[in-house]
Structure formats: C-alpha cells, structure tokens
C-alpha cells in the first residue's frame, strides 16, 4: 500500500487536474488518426491520470497484486488489438484489413474508420496498464528498501 501525501495543495490540485487529463486523453485517442496523437499518447496520459491520484491520496492493498492486475489489463488491451486484426483474417481477408470487418450496414471506408479506433483503444489500454504496472513495480522495490 502507498501512504497519502499530507498536503492540501497537492490534494486540491490533483482533484482539479485529473479529470482534465482524462478528458484530454480521450480527445487525443479519438482524434488520433486524423491529427497528432493516437493510442500511445492517450495511454500515457491515462496512466498519468491514474498515477497522480495514487501519489496524492495513496492506495490500499498489496502492490504486487495491483501490479499483476495491471499486467492482466495490459494483456486484454493487446487481445483487443489482435482480435480486431484477426477477425478479417479468419473471415478470409488479411490481418488488420479493417475493410473486411463484419459490421453490418456500413461502407468499407466507415468500417476502416471504426476499425482503427478499435485498435487504438486496445493500444491505449495496454500502454496505460503497462505504465501503471511499471509504477507499481518501482514503488514496490522502493518500499522494500525502506524497510
């Protein structure tokens, strides 16, 4: 577990900044394929919005368990990416050929649009979860040394 910081300034600022970071992360994610940004950038922003409150307010529970959960979440993100890539392959197209995604009532260009967004969400989940798990892992080592 991580002890909370004893500072009013940090607590208040964290409350204000965290939702802004998350909103900006969503913006970067959704506009990733037609403007600067994308899954990786959005993922690091989300990770920051998770790590900041943990530093400020602390967290209960064993760090190694939390780290393990973060790794599982990261795996699920890759599975989402690979699953969207694999669907067209199974349906007789090519890996990551979003045009062959089985979404009814949609033109090929629209399917490509949504397909890219889908894999970007997978990337975001994985990057955010990996960054958080790295934070837990470093923090766990630090605590071990303090004891």
């Amino acid at each position: 577990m991580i002890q909370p910081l004893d500072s009013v300034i940090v607590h208040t600022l964290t409350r204000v900044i965290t939702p802004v970071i998350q909103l900006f992360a969503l913006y970067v994610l959704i506009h990733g394929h037609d403007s600067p940004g994308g899954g990786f950038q959005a993922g690091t922003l989300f990770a920051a919005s998770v790590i900041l409150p943990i530093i400020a307010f602390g967290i209960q529970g064993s760090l190694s368990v939390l780290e393990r959960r973060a790794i599982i979440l990261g795996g699920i993100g890759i599975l989402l990416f690979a699953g969207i890539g694999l669907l067209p392959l199974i349906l007789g197209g090519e890996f990551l050929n979003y045009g062959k995604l089985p979404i009814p009532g949609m033109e090929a260009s629209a399917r490509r649009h949504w397909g890219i967004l889908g894999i970007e969400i997978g990337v975001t989940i994985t990057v955010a979860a990996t960054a958080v798990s790295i934070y837990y892992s470093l923090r766990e080592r630090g605590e071990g040394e303090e004891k």
Partner: protein
Amino acid sequence: MTSSLPGFLFAIPFFAAIVIPVVGFTNQKLCRPIALGALVFLSIVSVIGLSEAISHGPLSHEFGGWAPPIGIEWVIDGLSGLLMVAISVVSLIALVHAGPLVEKELSGRVIPFYSLSLLLIAALGGMVLAGDLFNLFVFLEIGSLASYVLVGVAGGRSLLSAYRYLILGTIGASLYLLGVGYFYAETGTLNMADMALRLPDVLDSRAVLTGLIFIVLGLSIKMGLFPLHGWLPDAYTYAPDSCTPLLASVVTKVPLYAFVRIAFWVFGMATVTTQIPILVVLGWVGAVAAIVGAYRAIWQENFKRMLAYSSVSSMGLIMLGFSLGTETGFAGGLFYLLADTLMKAALFGVAGAASYQYGASTVTDLARLRRNMPWVLAALVISALSMVGIPPTAGFFGKWHLVVGALEAEKYFAVVAILVTSMLTALYFFRMFQRVWAEESLPLVEPHVLETPFPIKMSLGVLTFWIIALGLGSDLVMGLIFESVIPKGF
C-alpha cells in the same frame, strides 16, 4: 484462404503468448496446456503451409490489404516453409521437454517462461516469413528481447551472461538496422523482392557495400559466428536448463536464415560471389569458426559449455556450406542446419535431464547416466554420433553433402576444414564417452533418484527418432530442397 496462412503462423503463438499471462495469473496450471496446444496447432499449420508452398508456389500475405511494395508482405516459399516447420516442431518438443524442468527450476516464473517462449517462437516465425527488411528487424528485436529474458530468467549467475548477450545483441541489431538504412537510401524500398529488382542499378555505390557489411556484421553477432560469438558460451552455459534446448536449437539459426535470404534472394548468387565477394570471405570465416569452435570444445569440463562451443563450430560449418557457391553446397548447408537444430535440441535436452536428476553439469558427472538413465544415455550416444557424422544419422548426410559440394566447387580448403572439424568433434565426444564408461568410482545404487519424467524421455526419444529419420530420408529432403528451395542464379 491459403494466402492467409502466413498471418495465422504468426497469430497462433502470439495470441497464446498474450493469453498465458491473462489466464495464468488466475490459474497457473493452464499455462502449459495453452502453450503446447498452440504449438501443436502451429506445427500443423506450418506443415500445411510448406506443402501448399511446394505444390502451388510461394504464398504471399498482404497485411491490411495493402499491396506490396508499399504494403507489408509476408511470404511462405520453400525455404521459409521448411524453416517454419523446423522451428514449430522443434520448439514443440523443447517445450514438452521443459515441463518438469520448469517446475523444478523456475517454480515462481512459470508464466513468464511460457509466455516469453511463445513470444520468441512468434518472433522467429515473423523473421522467417517477413518479406521486407524492416519487418525482419522488428521481429529480430522481439525475438532477441525474449531470449535475453529467457537466458536471465533464473537470476543469479545467468543475469550477467544475459546482460552481456543484451549488450552485444543490441549492437548487432543496431548494425543491421544501419545497413537497412543504407539500402533504403539507395533503393527507396524495403520490400525484398522489390529491392532485388532495384539493386543491380546501384551495385557500384559504396553505400550498398557499406550497408551489406553492416548487415553481415550485425547478423553474425546474432548468429554467434566466430569471432563474434563472445556472448554465446556464457549465455548457453548459465541459461536455465529448461530454456537451453529451445534457445540453442533455433535462435541462432534464424539470423543465419536472414543472411541467406538477403545474400541469395535480395542480392543474388552472382553478386555476392563476384561483384561484392562477401561469400568468399564468409567461407574462410566459416572454415575457421568450425575448426576453432570444435577445438575449444575439447577443453571444456562443463557439458553445456562444451555444447555451446560445438554450436559455434556447427554455425561455421553451415556458413561454409552456404558460401561454397554450388547447389549441393547450399543444399548441404541447409540440410546440416536442419540436422543441427535437432541435434542441439537433443544434446541440450540430455544436459537438462542429467542436471534435473543428479545436478550433473560436468562431462565426468555424465557417467551417472549409465547407472539409472539408460534411455537418456542412448539419446546422448545417438545425437553425439550424429554430431561426429556416423551413418545413418542426419549429421553424416549433412557433412557428406557439404564435402560433395566443396569438391564440386573445387574449394579444397573447405574439404579439409570439414574433415578436421569432424575429427575434432569426434575427439571431444569420444573424450566424453571415455569419461562416461571409464568412471568406476560410482555409487552402486542411488535410491533417492527418481524415475526420469515421461515428458523428458518422450521428447528425447522423438528427437533421436528424427535425427535417424532425417538421415535415412535424406534423399527425400535433399530432393525437396533441390526442387523448391534452391534460389535462382546457380
């Protein structure tokens, strides 16, 4: 449907590598069945891929539906199909063998072991199938990262050798990437088939020459070719016994494949022997590597270190075969590559079994196999005879074709090098046998020793069977190589 086979060949082990940690943290017992199931499936698909490639010509998969040379292309032809079958089958056997060893050595790290092994196999598949030079680099790095961790996964002494491997391997990868950069600057393409068309116009350029030298140096570090093999003996000696059969059998072979692909398919036989005579140089390097590796192996007390030097020697022999510049030499090199994959998996498997049962690590310790593990000893004898080159094992036919190829090419230094290497190999294996049978001071009964676990016996049995079967069926395999693998230009 068949054109999507390359995609599946990568997706199967990759998916399993991700599913294992996701599922494994809740139920660790599921790791092994998922890994083995994926590899069985992979082996079946790669056999289908090879037979399709032989009967209908190369299969190409265009990622995302974008046509090459702009899009990314993966290809199964005769060579990559054959390598893919070898990788998937040998890694399946190696992971079956690893089962009991993992539980003993790496009990807290079962999930990383299986996940990284599958990631390594997926990356090796990606390297073999990649149709462009940059993709090859990406998978070279993924595979190397997985193998650095596998070398160091047990902690302790192995971490140091893993660190050394990491530093040298990264230098190798950087050199390779630098070379690819030069090629890209000169030709404006990364696709191998497209580059093969454009290279003849720019062969005079020094950038191409420099790029080729960088690529050959980088891949030589990765494949452990003498004198750039510095990382290899320590990495193989201190890596956990559960990982070495997989690491030693396939990981160095695939960078060699990458070299062969670039030399014979991208540049073409005529260019690399006359215009940029890199094959001539590598022929000499291979001959020296084969002899020095075997010579160093004679003096090793540690069994795994002896096998590691033997790998350096085999790498030299294979490189020598490819550099001969005749069809028989090329086919012999490829045949010996396949044979060595099986032999190294079997020999490191025996090393793992001996250390599992007795904690045996030196050559003299192997004498204890005689008392309680006759079947493991039999596997050791057969694979050692194959290494030396005694008929009817695969090693004999590999060396036979190499010698025939060297005679056809009228390169007598190669003939001498192959024969000297065989004699030195015989020396270090017979020294081992002498220790095994001459040792008298053994305890008569060792009651605490358990029965050899079935997975170990079975995998060693299967490997030995294939060593003999590949020898007996060498005509078939050589026929296949001549018919559908040999590149144009001989």
